[in-house]
């Protein structure tokens, strides 16, 4: 079984991003970037399936500019067999991502496609479901467990108020929740080795896909700040404030 894993390059989750002076977008120049956390879970799961003999090959794919090579190197260092960069300067949105990934899937013919459940920059949470729709295959969204049967996989996914279990016919698209696993640390020698591995580059134009954005970002802003709070000295004072000042008791 061949597994394709989509990895996005995003601002590191610890960074508090700032807005450009003209308010048009966030300013990510010089900001620490890395692999989207959920995509790391997706990749980890693919690697574990391979280590358990359930998968034969794990291919990582990223869409975007040449800078995305760093997340693909990270994926190779974690243990991916191959890496593909679909190069485009287009401002990608989930539908465009899904269309480009569909073209890659048609070339690579994987049995299972793993994505993260959500990119932590745009917080969209859509590309996997959209890809499944375009491919006409089943989807397992926000999964916390996966099991391979013969022609099917069984996934446990988070629903409001609990979890549900689904069987999906292969090929299928699955999106990883953070709870799926604990991604391995990348060891330095592996990172050095990954630097030497080739990354296959395909231009988006070559795939013949129109991935242009449908949404225009008009502006960005800081959310309204909360008014500053106070520290109370005791439990009694807290109860007093909640009752008299905040009137929430």
């Amino acid at each position: 079984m061949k597994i394709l894993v989509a990895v996005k390059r995003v601002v590191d989750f610890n960074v508090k991003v700032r807005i450009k002076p003209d308010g048009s977008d966030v300013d990510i120049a010089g900001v620490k970037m890395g692999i989207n956390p959920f995509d790391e879970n997706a990749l980890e799961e693919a690697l574990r399936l391979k280590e358990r003999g359930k998968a034969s090959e794990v291919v990582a794919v990223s869409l975007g500019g040449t800078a995305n090579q760093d997340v693909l190197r990270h994926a190779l260092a974690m243990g991916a067999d191959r890496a593909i960069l679909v190069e485009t300067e287009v401002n990608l949105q989930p539908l465009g991502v899904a269309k480009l990934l569909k073209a890659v899937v048609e070339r690579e013919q994987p049995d299972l496609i793993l994505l993260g459940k959500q990119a932590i920059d745009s917080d969209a949470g859509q590309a996997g479901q959209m890809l499944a729709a375009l491919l006409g295959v089943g989807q397992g969204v926000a999964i916390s467990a996966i099991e391979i049967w013969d022609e099917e996989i069984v996934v446990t996914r988070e629903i409001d108020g609990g979890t549900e279990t689904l069987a999906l016919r292969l090929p299928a698209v699955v999106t990883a929740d953070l709870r799926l696993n604990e991604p391995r640390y990348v060891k330095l020698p592996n990172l050095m080795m990954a630097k030497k591995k080739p990354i296959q580059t395909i231009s988006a134009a070559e795939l013949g896909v129109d991935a242009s954005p449908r949404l225009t970002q008009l502006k960005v802003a800081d959310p309204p700040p909360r008014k500053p709070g106070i520290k109370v000295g005791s439990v009694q004072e807290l109860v007093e404030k909640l009752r008299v000042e905040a009137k929430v008791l």
Partner: protein
Amino acid sequence: MSVLILAEHDGHKLKKVTRQAVTAARSWQASIHILIVGHHIAAVAQEAAGIAGVTEVIQADAAHLAHPLAEDVAGLLVEHAGHYQVILAPHTRFSKNVLPRTAALLDVAMIADVIAVTGPKSYLRPIYAGNITATVESSDTIQIVTVRASSYAAVTDDGTANIASWAVSATTPLARWLGEKRNVSDRPELATARAVVSGGRSLGSAEQFEAVLAPLAEELKAALGATRAAVDAGYAPNDLQVGQTGTVVAPELYIAVGVSGAIQHTAGMKDSKVIVAINQDPDAPIFQVADYGLVANLFEAVPALVAALRTSAPR
């Protein structure tokens, strides 16, 4: 043209988030239809027909829709999408599964987790875990939108909508529903509770999480919430996670107990009306969003708070 709302319900009753989505739907000043997907849902349809401003309730009733698959619901929506200018749902795990699939089949974008509708095709939504808000405009003819329920008040009853039905096709061969596990609790539902008491990793065990926080939740008739660290450690079930990747809440009162206040957590609670933080570290980031901060050991402060609430309560 109309707005179609994909209802959230438990098979017996509509969830409050559906009524909140109706308020959002009013932004378009078009007629509002509500789709109820499920099995034996007549009571839910009746209830929806009573919501003020709803002009039509549509039932999609079939045995296989008792546990609806995204593949089936998206197929159903696509069949009827031509009649609608907007397909809208509260931003829940159900709609997050169904609507992106629907959007892709219709070849349109989806706008997720909207906190304000700023024009017929423009929206305000949080990005970067709520650190930034973005105003976006869509160029598509059909708008597929999920709204953050806590940004909208719930519509009450005052309507008598017509109830119709859609024919339902056979289920997809692509996926099968095998089963589910529900976390049963008598406490109010996290997403819509008036008060929420949340605990972090510092509670130390599932037993202590319950023993320390349950009496406080009881006293305040509050829902319990948790940080991801507490959930990962197994102190609380997954669906109690508050934050960027859990549930977003905005109750009247939010009490964060032994919670550090990582942005991924505050993303899910910083719009609460009143925030209380109890943490022994005076520099914990949670104090930056708290209205009332108490620097204390939670294992002493919480029982003391419960006792104080009991004795001082003017009931």
